[in-house]
């Protein structure tokens, strides 16, 4: 019985359930793919299911990290998929116009152009939300709808194929035997965590999400913070756009990043960030994105029939979301698993599940790793 308090502390950690689901999903694969966890060297780089999951999941992690901060301010950004398409389209069409597509300077310039476009989209979203007072879901819907049209305009409705070795690195290449995109993701996540948890920035973001007006009255520049998170989110989406187009060495204005906004929001929710704003967990989001990517890979490897893909996905997502709800856990597993937040929430059973989930992660200034 001595382990009980420790076990209890573990199950009440905000990352426990997402990580548990991730581990469970990974284990499901073993009977179907016996060497699922094996990683071997192929052509000078590591190769295996786990490497694939991280490689293909990288863009989603990036988009979801940006989305986390937007959601933490009580907003939402539906335009990330379109920003992914625009960035990829601009960058690839610039590279394809070059005589020497592998020239490093041209590739860097092309990536710069793409990312500037992403930042402009973010500024536009931030302007509409913070300055014009338009609801985030409406404000970002504009670029979501129109942006894909812009991407198709840039690519002329065609898929632009490029052949550029340096550009291939960012989303499909390897460095130190690992996919290069892992390093990009690690860098972005590290910078985000450092900025939000080592400085007061994270606290300010949460404060704006908790109550923008009150924050403004105590002297926080709410509007500036809001514009900043939309720009950051768009920048993350832009980098993801570079990765996606680099991964297949092609820009597909029509399909690149299609529905990634929904996967990103899902990843954020699975990670335990409240959609109401005011609290966030970058670590949770990364785990959430990995859960989604693992789920996708699992569907492919265990041979779920095509027609039932989405049903299978939905069933898993429902289970994950229910596990995230302390009220549900309390009902099903008894008080041991679920009581934690009930006590902190002042015993108010009327709180919505989305609200109660992150309250388990009590302190606003939590550690993330």
């Amino acid at each position, binding site marked *: 019985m001595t382990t009980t308090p420790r076990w209890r502390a573990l199950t009440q950690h905000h990352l426990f359930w997402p990580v548990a689901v991730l581990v469970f999903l990974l284990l499901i694969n073993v009977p179907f*793919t016996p*060497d699922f966890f094996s990683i071997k060297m192929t052509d000078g780089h590591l190769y295996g299911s786990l490497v694939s999951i991280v490689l*293909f999941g990288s863009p989603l992690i990036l988009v979801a990290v940006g989305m986390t901060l937007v959601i933490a301010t009580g907003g939402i950004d539906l335009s990330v998929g379109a920003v992914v398409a625009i960035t990829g389209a601009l960058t690839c069409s610039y590279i394809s116009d070059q005589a020497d597509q592998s020239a490093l300077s041209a590739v860097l310039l092309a990536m710069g152009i793409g990312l500037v476009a992403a930042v402009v989209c973010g500024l536009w979203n931030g302007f509409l939300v913070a300055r014009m007072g338009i*609801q985030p879901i409406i404000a970002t819907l504009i670029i979501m709808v129109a942006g894909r049209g812009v991407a198709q305009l840039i690519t*002329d*409705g065609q898929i632009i194929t490029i052949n550029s070795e340096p550009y291939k690195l960012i989303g499909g290449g390897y460095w130190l035997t690992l996919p290069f995109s892992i390093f990009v993701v690690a860098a972005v996540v590290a910078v985000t965590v450092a900025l939000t948890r080592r400085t007061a920035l994270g606290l300010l973001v949460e404060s704006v999400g908790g109550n923008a007006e009150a924050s403004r009255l105590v002297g926080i520049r709410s509007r500036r913070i809001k514009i900043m998170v939309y720009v950051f989110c768009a920048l993350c989406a832009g980098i993801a756009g570079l990765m996606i187009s680099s991964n*297949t060495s092609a820009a597909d204005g029509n399909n690149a990043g299609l529905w990634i906004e929904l996967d990103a929001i899902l990843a954020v929710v699975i990670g335990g960030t409240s959609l109401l704003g005011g609290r966030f967990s970058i670590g949770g989001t990364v785990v959430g994105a990995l859960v989604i990517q693992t789920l996708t890979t699992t569907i492919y490897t265990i041979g779920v029939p095509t027609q039932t893909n989405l049903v299978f996905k939905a069933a898993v997502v429902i289970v994950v979301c229910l596990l995230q709800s302390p009220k549900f856990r309390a009902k099903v597993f008894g008080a041991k698993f679920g009581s934690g937040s009930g006590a902190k929430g002042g015993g108010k059973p009327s709180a919505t599940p989305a609200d109660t989930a992150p309250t388990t992660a009590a302190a606003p200034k939590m550690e993330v790793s």
Partner: protein
Amino acid sequence: MLSRRNFLTAAVGVAAATGLAACAKEDDSASDSTSGGSKALVLGFSQVGSESGWRSANTDSVKEAAKTAGYTLKFSDAQQKQENQISAIRSYITQGVDVIAFSPVVVTGWDAVLKEAKAKKIPVVLTDRSVETSDESLYVTLVGSDFTDEGRRAAKILEKVLEKAGHKGAVKIAQLEGTTGAAPAIERAKGFKEVMDADHADDWKIVVSQTGDFTRAGGKQVMAAFLQSNPDIDVLFAHNDDMGIGAIQAIEAAGKKPGKDILIVTVDGVKDGFIAMSEGKINAIVECNPLLGPQLMEVVQKVKDGETVERWIKTKEGDFMQDQAKAALPTRKY
């Protein structure tokens, strides 16, 4: 809280944005064909959208063929929305064009507008895709590909590919399906399976089959997972070139040689597919021809003249093996 004024601003903003998107670009090329004068045949054509290179090639072919034939073409792009397409067809009816042609976005829901056309005695020709109607007389004919036959042809050409590669014994096949529920995906799979069940029930087996959504990224990701769960795949059958191209990258990342270790057969015949084939990475391509403009114009003339035409006019298509790739490459327009 959002004030009412702000909400209105937002609503107007969105309405303007979607309105711009919705009023489909109607580009009246009447001015191009002044030579025909007032007697020129007027064709109203409503295109699905411009979702792929295949589709843009299809659009260009129709426009070009109409110009060559000296017809006045009223072209509109429905941007993947049925309501846009219905309103385009309605406007053609009001304008009193001679013949209406369109590629339906979806299969059902056309009866009302087609009946209006019939009442005005304007013949309707479908291109590329078919519709389901209660009344078969609502359209004259369909000019388009036979997707089931493409599946059958893919299986037939795979026999040749296997023979050429000297493959003996059991064949383990991975299939990359198109978008779930789309006619080309369902029918290509059906046609392929037909031949497989009839002629190769003992030796061929589809070991994995999954949708790659007709995209390169989808094909790459799904193939990467296939290679993990079934490392001994012999053949890949992809429902379009783009998924095949994505899969090639996944196969290469796994340290295998596409076209050698894993034989690849795809459908469509886009330019990038032919480039991959000329590099030896795809073994055979079954063409799905978007260049149906000339055939369409022929049919339109016949329909206008009151001649009877077949219910389904199949597009002229070819099958290509690797050795034909280099020669065919310069002729690929899309």
